[in-house]
């Protein structure tokens, strides 16, 4: 018997509420596309996306489907297939609020929550227009007498706690430990999230903690609220180490989504096929 909370995909979808601040993994961390499909079908509203640090097709689809009110990210892009068209248009027409950030700031804000401190300092960034437009960020003079320079301005970033995080993993063990390998940003995301759900290709009938080296590749089950087995759950995105991206499909999307009409036609097939 599996010693964890095994859920159906729709049960996971039901755990996401309108208005939630939701963690969005980068394209290299396991994009939960099957989950995203169901979330769009459900007609979720006013999601606030927190990307660590970027999103590709997942964010663009959610935006194009009218599920998103706000996005915080260092980039939204279809990579070699160009700009994320629904994102770009939504920003250009003011349909969503964009909180422009930079990768290390997105990491640091979650690390603050990981440690339960109200803020994290970061170097760099000062003098950029990113900083200028982030009213929730703050610059103070370095207060620390015993390190740094006394008259040095220091950027402080607020702790951000996510309402919910969903990502797709290659495998989990029978006790609900998630194999994340080198993708340790998933640990940071999970530590900073109130609820964490995982879709996965398969459940292994072993305990990854039985071996010290395989234990080192895990995000421990204690951070996970539910798991659902979803084959090809990242398609058409890659699941690093398991399958590559379906570049034909992403290209098809990138062309279709150039207009809202083309996007809608594409999505009808994508969601209901």
């Amino acid at each position: 018997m599996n010693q964890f909370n095994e859920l159906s995909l729709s049960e996971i979808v039901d755990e996401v509420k309108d208005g939630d601040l939701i963690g969005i993994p980068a394209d290299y961390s396991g994009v939960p596309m099957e989950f995203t499909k169901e979330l769009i079908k459900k007609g979720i509203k006013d999601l606030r996306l927190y990307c660590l640090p970027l999103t590709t097709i997942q964010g663009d689809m959610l935006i194009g489907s009218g599920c998103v009110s706000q996005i915080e990210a260092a980039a939204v892009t279809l990579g070699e297939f160009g700009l994320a068209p629904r994102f770009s248009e939504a920003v250009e027409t003011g349909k969503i609020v964009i909180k422009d950030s930079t990768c290390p700031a997105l990491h640091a804000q979650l690390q603050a929550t990981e440690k339960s401190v109200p803020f994290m300092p970061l170097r760099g960034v000062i003098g950029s227009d990113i900083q200028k437009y982030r009213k929730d960020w703050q610059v103070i003079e370095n207060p620390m007498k015993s390190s740094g320079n006394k008259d040095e301005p220091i950027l402080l970033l607020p702790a951000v706690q996510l309402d919910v995080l969903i990502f797709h993993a290659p495998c989990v063990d029978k006790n609900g430990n998630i194999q994340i390998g080198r993708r340790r940003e998933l640990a940071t995301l999970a530590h900073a999230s109130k609820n964490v759900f995982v879709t996965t290709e398969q459940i292994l009938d072993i305990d990854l903690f039985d071996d010290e080296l395989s234990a080192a590749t895990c995000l421990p089950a204690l951070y996970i609220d539910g798991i659902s087995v979803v084959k090809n759950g990242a398609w058409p995105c890659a699941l690093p180490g398991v399958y590559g991206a379906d570049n034909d499909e992403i290209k098809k999307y990138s062309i279709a989504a150039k207009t809202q009409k083309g996007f809608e036609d594409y999505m009808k097939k994508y969601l209901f096929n």
Partner: protein
Amino acid sequence: MIELKREELLISQLADLLINDKHIAVGAASPIPGAAALLAKEEAKIQNNRLRVTILHSNKYNNFTDGARELFDCAAQGRIDTFFLGGVQIDGEANINLVGTGSYENIQKRFPGSFGSALMYFVVPQIILFREEHSPRTLVNKVDFISAPGFSDENIYRPGGPKFLLTNRALFKFNKQKKRFCLLKIHNNESLENVIKLTGFKFDVDDNLTNMSIPNENRINILRSKISYMVSEFYPEFADRIWGV
């Protein structure tokens, strides 16, 4: 011998800027910088020097194990000598814009975003700006949005910053004191006049302005016989287009 491609010339040009490095990192969507870094590594090996290359888009050439934040932590620790940044717009004071054109609150054309530039530009000693398109649209007098500034006040912690700007027409060096680019080399098929016309900002011209140097046969050999295959692991489309591998 097969004719030298423009991309190969740019790779060779970049590799020349990397010879003193110990650790080069290459971010997303950068096949030319990636190939240049691997070429420099290969040439260093021949000289019995160790040059480390971290290519984020690759598994094989990715040295990190602490998740996506390690690139930034590693750079902040001073352990990366060279990094590459691009820009939708780059201006004469080396400010870069990866966000969009028009005023920010009423943006005309939205681009992906700033990625990690706002930290990397401050902490990596040698930032090489690389933007193939050399036009008044990309090289502007003043960027519409500063993703990362070209220079900072004295009290700001900033061990790093812009050193060079390479386009498919020219190589500039950035002068930190003057806050101004200086043209060092131009492409063989290029005239100074045309470069001035196509550059949206004012710049100095080096007394020894030369053409970009053609790589010697050895280098071309390494590039085509070895680097091409390495690049095909993480940029298959690029490797196929340039070298048919």
